[in-house]
């Protein structure tokens, strides 16, 4: 396979992309020597063409939505419209300094305000703040608001957050960051939260519960209203993890289910790009009782003018989570997307995400794969378990995942949720064609046939990618985290 040397290794002393830098100035008397660095920073010394070629070539080693079907469960890898990107990068938005006065920033502020209102309506919440910079930060904001709410009421004994055992890892990690103990609630056989266990767990120590609905098991919590009543009766609040909002967008609203606070992943449901690991945007929505605690700043409309609400306007805020206003550029992309969907387009997202998931689930089941909750309707995603294949053929979920890459499909989420053995969590999203889904089914069937013929063959997959299966144990044991001059490139093994 093609090996691309590091950009450092392509450099030569003194080579530069001269057009990119300004002219040289003397240091002058302004900065005494003792503040200055002794030699130049260790950065590549390459030409512009070398840079363009190198990073173009690297980009070609990635899978992406633009090049492959990417059915990664709970990640909502739908098409990222190019129009959203272009319009968020208009000069007035792109070159605007975040501290520019409100009086000359009404254009961008009107967009942010519109989106706050649209998100509040589509989720059934009383207010929205766009500042959290990713889903996990939205979670943090949500749990911090729950904490602020209890403390403001003098209710200081609540020190526990309940989390279903199927939850994303960010949920318990967030609760701990907010100073809470975490208590796990089991799931029943049908994939719903175990209501009896929930009743047992609730008490005067309960600050709240974090729920994803539909859950990470790909099914809707059918008794959500009853759960909300139980939690509220115990004095706790309900937090909605918006990871799976795509499944119900425009169909059902977390606010109507009784949730007090939600975060939305705008980089999932509102189609902003994942960018190889961010930036995301974790806008939060709150019910009336949490309005005073929202993170600042928030845009308010007063007559025809917009202004930023800060600590002065919301003295009980949980505070600031970013130096500025959050990931505004991401928020603008989401705004353009929301305007293109409009009222009638919101529900269509859930319609077709659900249609694609149920179709794919039924087709895989018909081909003999084990659907984990066959008696349930899939939401926008579903789980299959390869327990049988692993036992009989020795072909694990990991082997299927890696072999799928050879067939030109990004692997679904594997081994999550942790409750289901040898599982793949599959989320096709609404923007994929039926043909693409059929192709995926065909690939799964072919891979199983390959496993039947020669189980070892799958263990070696992938075969056609830039690298074969990587030695992750070595990566963690013999840490090699940066290039240093004079270190030879890793030697090939004998």
């Amino acid at each position, binding site marked *: 396979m093609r090996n691309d040397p590091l*950009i450092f290794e392509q450099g030569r002393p003194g080579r530069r*992309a*001269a057009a990119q*830098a*300004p*002219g040289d100035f003397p240091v002058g008397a302004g*900065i005494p020597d003792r503040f*200055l*660095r002794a030699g*130049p*920073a*260790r950065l590549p*010394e390459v030409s512009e063409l070398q840079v*363009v070629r190198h990073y173009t070539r690297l980009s070609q*080693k*990635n*899978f992406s*939505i633009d090049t492959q079907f990417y059915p990664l469960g709970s990640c909502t890898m739908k*098409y990222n419209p190019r129009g959203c990107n272009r319009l968020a990068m208009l000069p007035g938005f792109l070159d*605007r*300094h*975040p501290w520019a006065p409100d009086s000359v920033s009404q254009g*961008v502020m009107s967009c942010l305000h519109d989106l706050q209102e649209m998100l509040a309506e589509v989720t059934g919440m009383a207010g929205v703040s766009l500042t959290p*910079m990713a889903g996990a*930060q939205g979670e943090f904001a949500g749990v911090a608001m729950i904490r602020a709410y209890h403390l403001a009421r003098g209710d200081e004994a609540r020190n526990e957050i309940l989390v279903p055992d199927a939850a994303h*890892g960010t949920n318990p990690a967030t609760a*701990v*960051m907010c100073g809470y103990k975490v208590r796990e609630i089991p799931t029943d056989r049908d994939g719903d939260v175990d209501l009896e266990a929930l009743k047992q767990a609730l008490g005067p120590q309960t600050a709240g519960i974090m729920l994803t609905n539909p859950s990470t098991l790909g099914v*809707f919590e059918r008794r959500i*209203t009853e759960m909300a009543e139980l939690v509220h009766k115990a004095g706790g609040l309900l937090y909605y993890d918006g990871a799976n909002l795509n499944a119900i967008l425009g169909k059902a609203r977390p606010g109507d289910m009784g949730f007090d606070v939600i975060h939305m992943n705008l*980089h999932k449901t509102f189609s902003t790009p*994942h*960018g*190889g*690991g961010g*930036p995301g*945007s974790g806008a939060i929505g709150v019910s009336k009782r949490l309005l005073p605690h929202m993170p600042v700043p928030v845009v308010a409309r007063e007559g025809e003018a917009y202004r930023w609400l800060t600590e002065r306007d919301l003295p009980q805020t949980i505070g600031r989570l970013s*130096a*500025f206003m*959050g990931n*505004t*550029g991401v928020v603008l992309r989401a705004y353009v997307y929301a305007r*293109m969907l*409009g*009222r009638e387009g919101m*529900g*269509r997202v859930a319609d*077709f995400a659900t*249609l694609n998931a149920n179709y794919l689930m039924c*087709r895989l089941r018909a081909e003999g794969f084990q659907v984990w909750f066959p008696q349930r*309707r899939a939401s926008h995603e579903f789980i299959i378990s390869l327990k049988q294949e692993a036992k009989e053929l020795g072909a694990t979920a990991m082997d299927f995942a890696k072999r799928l*890459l050879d067939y030109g499909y*990004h692997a679904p989420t594997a081994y999550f949720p942790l409750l289901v053995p040898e599982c793949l969590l599959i989320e096709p999203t609404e923007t994929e064609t*039926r043909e693409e889904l059929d192709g995926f089914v065909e690939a799964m069937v072919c891979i199983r046939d390959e496993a039947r013929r020669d189980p070892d063959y799958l263990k070696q997959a992938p075969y056609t990618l830039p*690298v074969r*299966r990587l*030695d992750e144990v070595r990566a963690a044991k013999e840490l090699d985290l940066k290039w*240093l001059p004079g270190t030879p*490139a*890793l030697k090939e093994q004998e």
Partner: protein
Amino acid sequence: MPFIPHTQEDIDAMLEVIGAADLESLFDEIPVGLKGHPLSSLPEAMSEQAVTRLMQERSARDVCGPCFIGAGAYRHHIPAAVWELTTRGEFYSAYTPYQAEASQGTLQLLYEFQSMMTGLTAMDVSNASLYDGASALAEAILMAIRANRRASSRRVLVAGTLHPVYRQVAESIVGAQGIVLETLEAPLRDGALDAEAMAALDGAAAVVVQQPNFYGRLEDVDMLTDQAHGAGALVIAVVNPVAMALLRPPGNWGRDGADIVCGEGQPLGVPLSSGGPYFGFLCARQAFVRQMPGRIVGRTVDLEGTPGYTLTLQAREQHIRRSKATSNICTNQGLMVTAATIYMALLGGEGLRRVALACHHNTVSLTEQLCTLSGVRPLHQGPCFHERVLELPRPASQIIERLAAVGVLAGYDLGRHDPDMANCLLVCATELITGDDIARYRQALEAVLREEAA
């Protein structure tokens, strides 16, 4: 239907495979009472053409400069190649590189980024980014508490010259974990920390120092680092990455260097974009690598011995460790790091040094020019990088508004954080500011001051 490819024939055939009568029946597990809200306040859908017009009109309303505002976000020249490459679909629309074999492009780029950041800061290890500079500081503080096993306290001392919003953000994030942030209270000497400041160090787990500091002044980082270490505290450096091409990097501060380095990555090729997305960076000593939050990429080999890259030390992270993770961070700012890596590759050490010097030079000349006006003077005299505090005869907030009305973004109002500094304006001139821009600023300021004096 925007972005949905299904024909009526597709829909019928797919429903038949599922055995469902219509789309609505796919939602039959959702209780009836929870469905069907009319969403009546939402606007109707717009075509791409219509939304383009809407966004063009709105973006045209906003004033972008000439921009003399800094205070944490800086307008630099971004080479054309940076975003042409960054918005390639293979970078733009990829997910976090969990499937290493299908993500070698992003992973190698992140490894190069880590190499560049450690070079720039003279530190041992770098992660693959956090959300922004302020939240990176919060993570650095949490990390220092974990890393400093010798310290018994959960006190962290924060320089009074740190960006006040960074302080606010750090408090919002670490406050719930029983960590107390205290200000290094001492009379500032000419806008920078004094040796006396460090008397309060006793028993603190860490000290936070910003270079250049919020006022643009250069701190005596060698003295501060050595004193902090002498008292058993770790040093957390908050730095501007462009300045690091010119100034002594934190790894070389004092006898032993800073322990953790963080900051705002935006100046490295990321547009101002109304406040984000930017990215936070975090570097540290090798000994603390397992205490770091966020993604880290390592180089390894595949089963044929070919070098390759993968996320590593994942046992620190939330998707493995859940409630025992070093942070709840999951998604970070990958695409911004893509831009920054390409930016640093294009500029190189020498190019970045020139950017830094041009900024310094322009700020010096801006200060000189504005201070020829009566009543305008620099508040501090000591060395600065690319920001300066100017004292004005009137409240800065009024002057900022008046100048914005004529298209000049004058600076940052320090009265926001300290009523005693209501007449103080923090100004910045990057390499993009020209002599004409400075002349225009001076002229506009002169007109406002003359008018008000009359």
